[in-house]
């Protein structure tokens, strides 16, 4: 699996917000086996005042994917991305342009515009988008090489609200790495996303707010691995009727 030419074995990307403590977070990162962690750069800590926490993230040794969580305008997202590039010394940015503070639904118009500006500026953009195919095309035109469609609203834990749309997206963009971002609540949700042929899953709240975050991180990693293996192995087709798995012809009939 590659994102912008970077090879990664784990198909789980883990968010770092909302954990009970940095110690619990570190433990969850370890037990998830993830190689990529996302970091929210809040404007109020962009002056470097979040350094104590960021140091603990760097110490995990994972590749850092900064994000623009909570940005509501193109300008805000672009500025935050530029700060993130300096602070974390990476061209990677998970781009969020939020349209509504209540539903946290992406503003896809602002998203495409911000993606164009950032790609031209040399960023490697991971856009958090809906499952809309046309928006996906516009993001690719803008220079994105990865798409991150939502499963359900951020933090809702509802699982995949529209698996058909994700299946269509897979079919429409066969060569583009697709990461389901947001909405995963349980390991079975993550496995379902992988069975649909998604390349990876990004999640945060489902692990951070679990009773045992490290335990849930491991469960998610296992589900993602199982879902991917299932996809690659080619699942059988569903049928309406039972099909006996052993031949019935010639069996003795007991009247």
């Amino acid at each position, binding site marked *: 699996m590659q994102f912008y030419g970077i090879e990664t074995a784990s198909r789980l990307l883990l968010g770092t917000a909302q954990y*009970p*403590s*940095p*110690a*619990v977070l*570190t433990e969850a990162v370890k037990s998830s086996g993830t190689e990529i962690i996302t970091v929210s750069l*809040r404007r*109020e*800590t962009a*002056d470097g*005042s*979040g*350094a*104590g*926490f*960021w*140091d*603990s993230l760097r110490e995990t040794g994972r590749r850092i994917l900064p994000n623009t969580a909570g940005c509501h305008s193109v300008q805000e997202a672009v500025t935050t991305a530029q700060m993130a590039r300096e602070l974390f010394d990476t061209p990677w940015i998970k781009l969020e342009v939020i349209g509504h503070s209540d539903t946290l639904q992406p503003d896809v118009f602002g998203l495409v515009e911000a993606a164009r500006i950032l790609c031209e500026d040399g960023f490697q953009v991971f856009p958090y988008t809906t499952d809309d195919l046309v928006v996906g095309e516009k993001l690719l035109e803008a220079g994105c090489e990865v798409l991150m469609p939502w499963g359900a609203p951020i*933090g809702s834990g509802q699982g995949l609200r529209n698996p058909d749309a994700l299946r269509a997206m897979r079919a429409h963009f066969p060569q583009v790495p697709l990461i389901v971002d947001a909405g995963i609540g349980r390991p079975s949700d993550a496995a379902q996303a992988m069975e649909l042929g998604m390349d990876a899953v990004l999640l945060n709240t489902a692990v951070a*707010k679990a*009773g045992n975050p490290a335990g849930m991180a491991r469960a998610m990693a296992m589900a993602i691995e199982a879902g991917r293996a299932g996809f690659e192995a080619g699942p059988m087709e569903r049928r309406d009727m039972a099909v006996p798995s052993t031949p019935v012809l010639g069996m003795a009939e007991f009247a």
Partner: protein
Amino acid sequence: MITIAGAGLAGLACAYELAQRGAAVTVYERGETPGDSSVARFAGGMLAPWCERESAEAEVITLGSRASDWWAKVTPVHRRGTLVVAPARDRAELTRFARRTSGHRSVDGAGVSDLEPALSGRFAQGLFFADEAHLDPRRALRDLATRVQEMGVEIRYGMPAPARVTLDCTGMAAPLPGLRPVRGEMAILHCPEVDISRTLRLLHPRMPLYLVPRGDGYFMIGGTMIESSSDRPVTLRSLSELLNAAYALHPGLAEASVVETGAGLRPAFADNLPRLCEQDGTLYLNGLYRHGFLLAPAMAQQAAGRLIPETSDEDHRERQTA
């Protein structure tokens, strides 16, 4: 002679425990009054170990469950319990909170209004933690300083500590590896029209809020947890979220005067639990995080135990009469 750097919450609690054990203690404080430079002045003053367990390790209960009794010897403690509520659409937050904590009972709408008539008709469900309590942090710091002085402790205000002290309780100023600041922001409201007698917690996925009554119509509200070393005044975003949440708790608070806002940096280690550690011959008590009033008593007892190993009751009496 035992010397302590810092007359904040940790320093004063240690002075109290050491004086109890008969030690001669001097405390150095760079501020001019008790708690002057202490982040504890922005605390909620909640003695709420069972609620805190929602996001903290089990030690908050084992170390914190006797804090109310400790403080009651020093300052008024209001044993009114904690009432936890959530807006109807965030009911899942209440379910999660209940699952992760103990020491509570579920209350319905009638139960909520029995406890706090001001909330009548506003919340259909809540959790009541009957054994929790709260105090007024600034009064508690003053009362504790007065008490330790009565016990013979000398507090030298406006005095930087000497280069080497027995016990360092200087919070974020301490040179300890792994210590990080967690910013918290608060406001004090004055709203005599709203009568709330106990700590309330409003659960919300983005902006959880606690409101602690200070008496005479004053309320402290807080709740932000930001991984930041910035001690600038409260931001507009945080303040508007705090005030919004307060309004969601009770619309009557819309008429409140915002009499004060503040921001402080809480020292924390990676596991968000306090630690006693020795470095270059000095003992450090630090990392009280958001649990200062809750965990300082138990940690001060541990610190005093390290500096003055336990003696039998007879030895203790002899020393006191000597």
